[in-house]
């Protein structure tokens, strides 16, 4: 197992107001598997992804990535872990506006401290996503689709074992979205990465090995696309 999540909860407090965002999630993901997490707004998809990435700490429960428990790690340990094991693609691209496309892609490698192959690797990946002519462009000089392709290249730059993607085509038109998706899956196959996708897009979900459905902070459904619905955890119904 590359990802093991056990009894994960997350509760937020604002004044006297308590919000339960995740209410006991159990999940396992195999190496090289492609998982799609679906659910309506406020169902806890993005929070689950943020917890998997170690961006935030859960209220209770455990998360193990490649056997390593991450919930008791401090901020720097988590940062190092992300640098070694995780890659990200965000809906809003999240490129650093003051850096060129090439410099953005080099970042994960440089942050790890091995700067020598960074430039070659960045250019190789930018070539792979079709941005050969855009190495020195700043994000503001690129279209949305191009920015997301830079983000894809950056996500794979550090050769992560796990790639977490949050609505990667959410901000793109259907044609551009399709191109980005093809690139994402192509790179995923080539690099042998485990992919966890959060999406609203049914077309995108269908390409996954497994679909997890969330509602009100709980897993309500787990399906394998193409096969008939195989309810794994249906206590919500």
């Amino acid at each position, binding site marked *: 197992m590359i990802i093991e999540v056990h009894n994960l909860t997350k509760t*937020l*407090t*604002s*004044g006297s107001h308590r*919000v339960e965002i995740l209410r006991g999630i159990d999940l396992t993901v195999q190496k090289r598997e492609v998982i799609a997490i679906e659910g309506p707004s406020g169902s806890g998809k*993005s*929070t689950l*992804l*943020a917890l998997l*990435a*170690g*961006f*935030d700490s859960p209220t209770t429960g455990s998360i193990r990535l490649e056997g390593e428990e991450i919930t008791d790690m401090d*901020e*720097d340990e988590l*940062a*190092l*872990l*992300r*640098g*070694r094991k*995780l890659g*990200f693609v*965000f809906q809003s691209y*999240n*490129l*650093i*506006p*003051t*850096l060129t496309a090439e*410099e953005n892609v080099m*970042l*994960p490698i*440089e*942050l*790890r*401290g091995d*700067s020598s192959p960074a430039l070659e690797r960045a250019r190789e990946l930018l070539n792979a996503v079709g941005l050969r002519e855009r190495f020195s462009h*700043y994000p*503001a000089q690129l279209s949305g689709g191009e920015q997301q392709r830079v983000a894809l290249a*950056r996500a794979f730059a*550090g050769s992560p074992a796990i790639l977490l993607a*949050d609505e990667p085509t959410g901000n793109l038109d259907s044609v551009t979205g399709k191109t980005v998706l093809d690139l994402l899956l192509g790179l995923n196959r080539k690099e042998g990465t485990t992919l966890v996708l959060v999406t609203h897009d049914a077309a995108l979900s269908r390409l996954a090995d497994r679909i997890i459905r969330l509602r009100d902070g709980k897993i309500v459904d787990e399906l394998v696309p193409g096969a008939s619905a195989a309810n794994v955890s249906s206590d919500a119904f």
Partner: protein
Amino acid sequence: MFLPMPFEIRLAWREIRPAFKKFLFMIIAIALGVGSVTGIKGFSVALDRAMARSARDLIAADIAVRMNSSPTDKEMQVLDSLVRRGAQVTRTTETLSMASVSGGQRTILVTVKAVDPNLYPYYGKVELEPDAVFCDALTDDSVVASREFLIRSGAGVGSSVQIGFARFRLAAVLKSEPDRISSGVELGPRVLIARKGLERSGLIQYGSRATESFLFRLPARGLELETARGILKAGLQGRVRISDYRDPNPALSQGLERMANFLSLVGLLALLVGGLGVGTTIHTYVQQKLDSIAILKSLGGRSSQIIRIYLFQGLFIGVLGSALGVALGYVVQIVFPPLLRGLMDLPTQLEPAPGAAVQGLLIGIVTTLLFLLPPLLAIRKVRPARVFLREMPETHYSTLRRLRHDRTPLICAVILLLGIGILASWVADSWRRGALFIAGLAVAILALAAGAKLLLRALRHVPRPNSLALRHGLKNLNRPGNHMASVLVALGIGVAFSLTVYLVQTSLLPQIIKNAPADYPNVFLLGITELDRDAVWGFLRGQPGIENAGKPIPMVPARLQKIEGRNADQLNLEPSDRRFFNGEFMLTWSSDLPPGTRLTAGRWWTPPYEGPLVSVGDFAARRLKIGVGNSLEFLSGEKVIRGKVASIRETDFERPGTNNQFVFSPGVLEGLPASYVGSLRVARPHVVPLQSALFARFPNVTSLDVGQILGKVQELLDKIAHVIRFVAFFAILSGVIILASSIVATRYQRTREAVLLKTLGATRSQVARIQAAEFLIVGLAAGVIGCLLASAAADYLLGHLLDTKFSFQWIPVIVGTLCTAALAIATGWLASRGVLNHKPLEILREN
């Protein structure tokens, strides 16, 4: 071959590149502060060096002894002992006198310096115009005088000038004399006269006030400087000022050092305003970079790595700003000396001082880093989850609870205060002054910050103005990242400081004059001999315009010997009080309590007088620790005078007067030779004619016109204020830069707002008016806060330290506020140029 740069530096540089304009303002703010500190410190160091280089010229001798009265026989023996050991000596005498030019209408007060032109100066040169050899030009029948004398008296070279009883030919214009720096500030233009000429003039008589200097040239061998100094010091018992070529003018060097330290602190103020600007701008910058920081963290960046990235950016600002500041400091060093002209004569050749440059560089970098600390440490709190969940609700705590939970802000504040305290102490060369500076600054900042917060809060509750521009302008003050409170503090400090200087400068003397009663003396007569006394008062009775001729006040010069049987060595006095003890006092007597004084202890005497009694001024009583009942012993000539202290008097210092510290009961000083002074009230139009008439009849009597002297003092005050304002200007400029920096930091937001307003149908001029309204409000607010603080500071300074009253002045406050507003609008307009030029589509597409 290039060495690979650490990743953090590379990334820092990549971030600086596109944001250079934002950085530029911070760099300028730091440069201004460092420039003022380096310039003034450098000037002071360079001056010290220049003085050391031409030290012998600056005292015109190897060693010089200066005293405020004629030496006693015993003292003469000490001085002569050096001559016996091979030294050469020449004597100079400086005194005040009246002078008139034949055919001229005016009689003017002059500073007369008598020298022996065949010996004086031992070093350096007296420069004359037309060029002439000094000893040829100055004879027993001639004088040389400064250009100011010629202008004020209407004389020309060749004119006949009367000084005292004698007439002289004005031989040349005095351009410079080598030891001029030793004389300090004077009341009248300078006239050099030969010693024989001085005798002929009859100016120096018993009881005359004159400064005597003995200039020595030491032999090539046989008498070392140290030995000569030792002999003089031991023999003259600290009553005199001894200077030598190693420290030509200790009082002046100390004065200069103190002034340089004070002005450097004003410069440091400018630097701190700059530092504050760097802190707030970096804070805004970091706030705008929160997303990038979160992205870096999500990609595996550790807090320490990211802090280093921004630290390098800060260092870039600090180093570049400080280096530019050092360059600016050299410019200040060139501009500064002309400002001091008239306050002191400075050596002409000043060279750059690398020590001050290094100090400035370090202070600039450290200040930047100190102010960077809070925003840098805040980076630790940025959560990577921000990339996913920007609007995620968080748990909110009160400020106190937050502080209990996280002490970083508190620790930052302590480090900042300590750091600035150490810098201030370094600049001021004193821990005490550093601490005082910090305390004063903290009070000013707290007052300004509280004022700014209150004002911003009050503005939030202002009823909605009808004008769209004003309404939006008010709202914009609270724009995120605007740091309006910091901008108001920065601008306010500069305004407050400059206006305080102005208010003190323009209030001090007018206030003193205003407080003086209508019948107060405005003309003083000095140097009246016993023989002339009755004739002078008889003459005065016949003169028009004299409202009150007063009584002749007797003066007996004497030296204090013992207090309660103990001499200066046994009294354990501070060095400055010891010098005061050793000075010459003018003793007087009176049956009545002198006008303008009141008793603070003891009783005034009534006849019959029980033994010799003395009333002591509280100034002398405080310095010499004299109390009622103490016995005092003076020596006048060869005669010992004793008295028991009957009372302590407080003298009203605002009133000009003779202010004798020791007043005896009638009869004690009888039989001693005395000179007399007079204090008269003369109707203003009659003052000048009276001075001329008096001079024609009694040429050895010096008359001081209080109005003229106050004018001279005001001139001096104006010059000092001018110098302080020059340095304070840097603080204002820093404030302006911070405003500009804050505007540039929020430029993107402003552009977006402008575009949105345009999209909604606003015209270009409407948007421009909205922005102008915001800057107007900022300027007015900073002006009001700064001006009020300045009025409070002036009230404190005048009321508590200078013992006068301050009355609130509307005009400077209104003008100051309006000027600040105009400055803010101009700065705002310049810094936000181009914001209105963007097409809506460019900005909307970016979103």
